[in-house]
């Protein structure tokens, strides 16, 4: 029958594509190539459950194919009445007991892994970062070391980092697929997630809980650098002097414009408490503008002129005086000269 050909062809195409795409997936974004502790735990269970369930699927498909090959109504035998079977105790027991065993095989490792990933008893011995989810950006407060960043989270590779997460508005969800599964960022309680990256790199993170129009643009990065680089970075970040006036005349003018136009009210540079918008310390070394856009001067100028064009619904649009292109240019120049350290995303050996 033509239909069957179509079905088989479609199946072949699916499997080929599936293989192709599995191999693909963007490195440091895909969960299919785990590079961290949590992601690895999840991956182990993904593989286990996929294998077990594929076995069940195979049995079903084989039975279905046999039925379709052997028990179709035959031409000229439309009046044939098959034997009316009520059931079969033995068979029905088999297909009850075997699934129970399969469930146990999957359940035990699941429980063990659940407890393992929720075990935060080591938190006091490790680095802790307070993470705040905001419509549509992420804030990172290195509480022990008393400095803050936004959007780019630097961590030492191969070490556990405890993230204590809370939301300032609606529910968000913190997800860095290559390093760890997700955990919700709730407004009412602090959730703790520990992450550990196995390799240096810049990892993509995403918000995974619908949080408004900007939800799909609430990306962030986790940047895993060597322990030495991390320590250097911390030292540099702590040494930032927010009052420092840039040498460059244009940038200095930009700083004044930044202060005059109320940017300071929402954006901190250094350790000011302002937290309505992202902390802009060390802005020269950001991976992206607003978490998603290419980190270039052009984009930054455009952002300052009209953030709405890049991120619909963001909470900066319309909250500051209209700026001329020239003014935006100067502010951008200033922000791009906020270069506190030599430890950059490139240090993570991207």
């Amino acid at each position: 029958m033509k239909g069957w050909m179509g079905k088989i062809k479609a199946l072949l195409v699916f499997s080929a594509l599936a293989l192709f795409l599995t191999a693909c997936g963007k490195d440091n974004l895909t969960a299919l190539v785990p590079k961290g502790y949590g992601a690895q735990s999840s991956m182990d269970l993904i593989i286990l459950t996929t294998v077990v369930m594929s076995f069940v699927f195979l049995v079903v498909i084989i039975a279905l194919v046999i039925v379709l090959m052997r028990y179709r109504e035959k031409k000229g035998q439309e009046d044939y009445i098959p034997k009316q079977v009520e059931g079969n105790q033995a068979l029905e027991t088999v297909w009850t007991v075997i699934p129970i065993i399969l469930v146990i095989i999957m359940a035990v490792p699941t429980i063990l892994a659940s407890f393992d990933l929720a075990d935060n008893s080591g938190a006091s011995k490790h680095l802790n970062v307070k993470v705040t989810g905001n419509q549509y950006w992420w804030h990172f407060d290195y509480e022990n070391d008393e400095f803050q960043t936004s959007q780019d989270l630097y961590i030492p590779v191969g070490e556990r980092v405890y993230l204590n997460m809370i939301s300032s508005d609606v529910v968000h969800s913190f997800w860095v697929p290559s390093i760890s599964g997700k955990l919700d960022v709730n407004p009412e309680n602090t959730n703790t997630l520990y992450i550990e990256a196995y390799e240096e790199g810049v990892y993509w993170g995403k918000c995974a809980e619908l949080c408004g129009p900007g939800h799909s643009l609430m990306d962030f990065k986790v940047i895993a650098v060597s322990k030495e680089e991390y320590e250097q970075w911390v030292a540099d970040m702590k040494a930032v002097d927010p009052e420092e006036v840039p040498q460059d005349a244009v940038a200095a003018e930009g700083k004044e414009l930044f202060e005059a136009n109320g940017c300071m009210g929402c954006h901190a540079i250094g350790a000011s408490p302002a937290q309505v918008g992202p902390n802009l310390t060390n802005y020269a070394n950001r991976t992206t503008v607003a978490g998603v856009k290419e980190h270039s001067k052009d984009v930054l100028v455009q952002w300052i002129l009209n953030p709405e064009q890049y991120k619909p619904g963001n909470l900066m649009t319309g909250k500051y005086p209209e700026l001329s292109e020239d003014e935006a240019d100067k502010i951008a120049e200033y922000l791009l000269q906020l270069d506190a350290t030599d430890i950059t995303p490139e240090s993570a050996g991207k």
Partner: protein
Amino acid sequence: MSIAATQKRSFGAFLWDYLTTVDHKKIAHLYLFGGGFFFLLGGLEAVVIRIQLIKPENDFISAGFYNEMITMHGTTMIFLAAMPIIIGLMNAAMPLQIGARDVAFPFLNALSFWLFLFGGLLLNISWFTGAPDAGWTSYASLALDSPGHGIDFYIAGLQIAGAGTLMGGINFLATIVNMRAPGMTYMRMPLFTWATFITSVLILFAFPALTINLFLLMFDRMFGTAFFDVALGGNTIIYQHLFWIFGHPEVYILILPLFGLFSDVFSTFSKKRLFGYTAMVFATMLIAFLGFMVWAHHMFTVGLGPVANSIFAVGTMAIAVPTGIKIFNWLATMWGGSVRINTAMLWSLGFIPSFTIGGMTGVMLGSAVADYQYHDTYFVVAHFHYVIVGGTVFGIFAGLHYWWPLMFGRILHEGMGKLTFWTFFIGFHLTFFIQHFLGLMGMPRRYWVFLEDQGLDLGNFISTIGAFFMSFGVIVFLINIIYTAVKGEKASADPWDGRTLEWATASSPPPYYNFKQLPLTRGLDPLWIEKREGNGKMTPAEPLGDIHMPNGSFTPFLMSLGFFIAGFGFIYQTDNSLWHIALFGGMAFALGCMIYRSIKDDHGYYIPKAELEREAD
């Protein structure tokens, strides 16, 4: 009131007939066309979503509008398309399957329908002023944050439609408990009737959770309470719990009736008794029971802790056992049978691999730690479309082809039916299979855009192409309906060599009183038994006598209209207190209808024995 006379009527009389009907068979038509309309609307929304995602950073629609689109797509498909169509099928077949003349409360049945329709219309009117945009789950933190009245429309619309569903569930329960024909014991009921019974229990216990949750949200948004307002000491996680205490049973409400239907179809078209009938019944009950125990698997990433996550993980995986029993029993039913593959059967056969994949990913999602990766990504989107489309929608199509003769007296065109099946089936797998991988490759759900250069382009493109295939299939189906209405083959009373009582009436569709004399059931598959062991006809369980029938009524329509008007009042009274007029006026009107209905004696009417004798068998 004879059949010949009812065929030549003016359009006005036809309309009035449907506006006032309390006949379960006509209410089934209403549900099917009401639900069908919303299904097309929801499908259109789906296509818009897929066009937006055909390429990276597309700007076909804006971000805010996109969120409205996904919210309305989900809400519409679940509450206004799938459930009403299922309830339509239940109305069409269940009373006949138990040998009854109607449901227990025909008036209530009509009220259920009109509440659904007015609730659905209310919700969709929000398109003109700003639709809800917090997802079909409408989680409290975001729902409270959402500006405008979209969420208020969601609350009012669902509250009204939900009341109708709850009444429908109670009605079906009362019907099955009380109105089975002589000999139709519980363990002789067809699986579809069993599924209707169990589903109604689910509705009875699950919908109140939704109702309460919507009330709390409504108070927070409209009357200044703070159940979910964290700044004032509220808690948003309670919303999530209440939502899923309703929401998880809801997915079983969507699938169990079709499990029942597939059981009937497999058995009929294999010419074999259902394999392991008792096991099938108890498996259905077990699934329903466990369905109430697993809601927090939707919340594995909320941070409930390892104990809760483990318990809910094990419970979730356990559901695979009764589900597996059902799938193997279906296969065993066909095994050794004489399998006739027509369109109804094609959909049922297509269901097996499709739903098995959905069940398979369901177990995978149940593994809590694995779910930390799947949750809220396209993997989940793929999973629930595999169960809801591959299970529910396939089942609905199977049911429509199977019962079309019962409902409309004609057989749907087989050729077009098969074309619909193949395009829809292929399109469905194209659309959703790839999404499992998109999710794991880092694409969260409810994303207005995905970024360039993240390896997500090809998968999304394929997915969109698949959606076009599915749309094509649906369009062919619409043409099929029109063609069948005009030129379709007329059906006999028993076109499929059926086994159950819905095929034992005098004609297709059955006369308005269903059975002249209630049939006597002698075992499972009563009609089949009479065909093999008797004279091919049901033995009457009662002498021919007058038949008591309910009168039609316009009150259900008016009552629902009152709630509809009150709905606007609730929504807009926060802007302007003049809207209190609509609020109180609508409520008073609905209440007035209730009082009228309670006070006025309506004893129905009798079809005299003489008239029944005149009508040929």
